[in-house]
């Protein structure tokens, strides 16, 4: 009986020791997962729709392109899906037709990445270079309080989702 109690207490002691050690070690490593991020917000107001010219506009703070076609707007990410460099846009003198993901689209610009030479059609579809995925489209909506455009880069939307104003 006594022996049993002794081994039980020994195990309890070792267990308590290991648990407290792991607790201490946890406090060493847990701080490395940030609780607050002082980064630019993922959902931002980017001004009145009317201030955007026809065609493509780059918003450097959020690394996103806003594209206006008449009264419709959409947002495409400027972060290359290969290794995260900022893709640049190149405008064509004349719009041209390309087949992107089985559909024929008319594009007046394309994207390319300087780091490793990936290329994307105007709708963000990758067609050349090492990029593994198309550039995502982000949610775009009108802020109900002051009518500004809001882009939410934490929410991806289907290609072709456009905001009509």
């Amino acid at each position, binding site marked *: 009986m006594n022996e049993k109690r002794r081994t039980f207490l020994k195990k309890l002691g070792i267990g308590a020791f290991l648990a407290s050690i792991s607790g201490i070690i946890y406090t060493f490593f847990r701080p490395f997962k940030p609780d607050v991020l002082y980064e630019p917000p993922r959902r931002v107001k980017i001004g009145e729709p009317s201030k955007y010219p026809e065609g493509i506009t780059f918003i450097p703070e959020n690394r996103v392109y806003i594209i206006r076609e008449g009264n419709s707007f959409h947002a495409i990410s400027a972060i290359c899906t290969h290794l995260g*460099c900022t893709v640049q846009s190149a405008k064509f003198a004349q719009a041209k037709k390309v087949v992107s993901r089985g559909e024929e689209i008319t594009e007046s610009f394309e994207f390319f990445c300087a780091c490793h030479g990936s290329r994307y059609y105007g709708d963000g579809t990758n067609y050349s270079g090492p990029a*593994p995925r198309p550039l995502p489209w982000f949610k775009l909506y009108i802020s109900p309080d002051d009518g500004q455009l809001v882009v939410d880069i934490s929410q991806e939307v289907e290609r072709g989702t456009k905001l009509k104003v």
Partner: protein
Amino acid sequence: MEGKIKKIFKRLFYTWAPSSGKESGQAIIKNFFLHWFPNKSLKRSLSWGYSLWLGTASLSLFIILFITGIILMFFYVPSVERAYWSVKDIEYVISYGWFLRGMHRNAAHLMVAVVFFHMVRVFLTGAYRSAFKELGFRELNWLVGVALLLLTLLFSFTGYLLPWDQLAYWAITVGTNIASSIPLIGKWIRFLLLGGNEISQNTLIRFYTIHVALLPSILTLLIAYHMWRIRKDGGLACYDNLILNSKKVMTNPNPTKTYSLLGYTKGKSIITFDYKLDEEMVESSPNLTVRALIVFLITFFVCFSMTLLLKTPLEEPANPSVTPNPAKAPWYFLWLQELVADTTIKIGDFTISGGLVGGVIIPGILLFLLIITPFIDKSPVKSIGVWFAKERRKQIIVFLVLIFLILILILIGTYMRGPNWRLYWPWESWPEKPVNL
């Protein structure tokens, strides 16, 4: 006459000086700074041609980096707002700042190269194994060496971000995104490494602390262990080779050890044998110590000359919205960047990112090969400690081909990649306006 002058000199400046081989050995062992050297050394292991002294050169570079690094720490400010400007001050305002930063940078680049060639030397001489299991276990020291090589690369990588210029920012962007292409845990690793979703203040302070505190401590301990193991494994591998080729001579079977540290020991007296290597050995002081000093001086001289001849680059401040074209990783990672750009595999609609193939899988396989090499190499023991032993021809050819491929990829990445990562001959000029679709 000369003897007399020496005698007077000794009288004036020594209270005691070694007068025999035994005493000069004692002088080494009892000295704090010299105690890691053996009493006597093998002539062959002191020759320039056998080891090329690359390990000593690596340590010399580490010492230079340690000293210049501490001085730079007094002037560098690890904050996003001030990092770039403090480096600019080091370069243009602080007296000799340009010199210290240049020495630090050149020594860092040299260290990557020298540590790498140190590994190549050990491989080519088959020095990662022991001919006599009872004399040592060099396989373990090879593993420590591989760890030291990886730590050296990590050292360089973390230091690369600190100037916070365009070069730094985009090299780290590409580097950390390679990590995020590891399946399942990649995104998580990148988040922890950066301390957020993008390169920010959190990233800078993390890289800084790893660079100036964590890695120097780990590296110092590992280097000490690496050197201690060389001694405990019976010296350089050429020693094993010498023993294999010499005759065992029995010495008198006297009871050589009847006392242990704790008192009288019972049991049989130990029978010893000897290889009669006395002719092959020399006193470590001055033969080893002076050579080590010469290697340090040569290393220092090379660093010094590079600093005077080469301009230490500092580009524009980091700008997350503008990627320079082309954006290149540091040269020792360019072979990886080249692989990453070339290895995206497309099967129909299914794509495997080059980041995973070239950035994780291929280097992972190479590292795995490095780790298991000493354990799978079953060539005869007489090939240990011999340059280009013919018994190891196959291993050496495979190894050299891999090294050669890595060097070729580095050269292509450095000299032949222009805007949009297109191939250009080194003598071809790049287009003035790189946007060309």
